[in-house]
């Protein structure tokens, strides 16, 4: 049985199992928010999604996922440029294996690069870099 949550889980697992990405973002890969105290991590989040149907059933699930590295500007040696590039190497046109689905495509729609001023301490900056990735999976039984 196809479960939409499994697509996100597979995406997080793919990123979280890469040694190079984890060396750049040692706090790990998280859905929506990282644990308190994290300074270098990857966030995966939903931006938008749509289902496409055939007669009698859902056939294709399309999702746009935000995938970005986030790094505190005060961390020595933080390399957000390389982290974003590694995310892209892992995802762009790469297959995603999810039970109940057949992979169709995974590719970036647009890059993301932001600098966020910390709400508590305005002298601190959060660097955010990655992209919006389009993932299309078709149901194996459709």
């Amino acid at each position, binding site marked *: 049985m196809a479960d939409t949550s499994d697509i996100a889980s597979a995406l997080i697992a793919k990123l979280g199992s890469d040694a190079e990405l984890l060396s750049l973002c040692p706090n790990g890969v998280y859905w929506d928010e990282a644990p308190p105290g994290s300074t270098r991590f990857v966030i995966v989040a939903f931006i938008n999604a749509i289902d*496409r*149907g*055939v*007669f*009698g059933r859902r*056939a*294709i699930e399309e999702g746009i996922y935000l995938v970005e590295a986030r790094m505190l500007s005060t961390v020595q040696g933080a390399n957000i440029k390389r982290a974003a590039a590694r995310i892209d190497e892992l995802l762009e046109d790469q297959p995603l294996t999810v039970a109940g689905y057949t992979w*169709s495509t995974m590719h970036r729609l647009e890059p993301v690069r932001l600098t966020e001023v910390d709400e508590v301490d305005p002298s601190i900056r959060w660097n955010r870099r990655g992209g919006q990735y*389009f993932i*299309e999976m*078709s149901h194996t039984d*459709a």
Partner: protein
Amino acid sequence: MAIKTGRYGQVKWDAAGTTPVLLISLNAWTGDFKTEMEDVTCFGDVNRVYIPGMKDAKGTIGGFWNSEELAIIEASDDDVPLFLELTPNINEPLFTFEGLAYVSAELEVPVAGAPTISGTFAGAGPWTLPTGT
């Protein structure tokens, strides 16, 4: 009888016309069974007058390209008509439009989306339409 969703529509086919099987990955069909009208307006008529001619039997089917379903492609490469059974909603299985038809196919492969297939059919014999009984 009621107005029902097209989500549970269906298209079946069979080369022999005996046991139609489901065409998968489709999500649309149209049927055109309009009767042509011949204009027989005469001098003195206060409006145009028509007499019915032949009923048409043609339409379209459409959906996603699926490499496991090549029936439409194969049918378009063949000059032998096949049997089509079109159902607006499978929860009313007695209301079907069916008959022999020639089928042709068309593909569209956008770079940013799932490839789609569409086809046209044209009657190749008498078609049966649902009745209100």
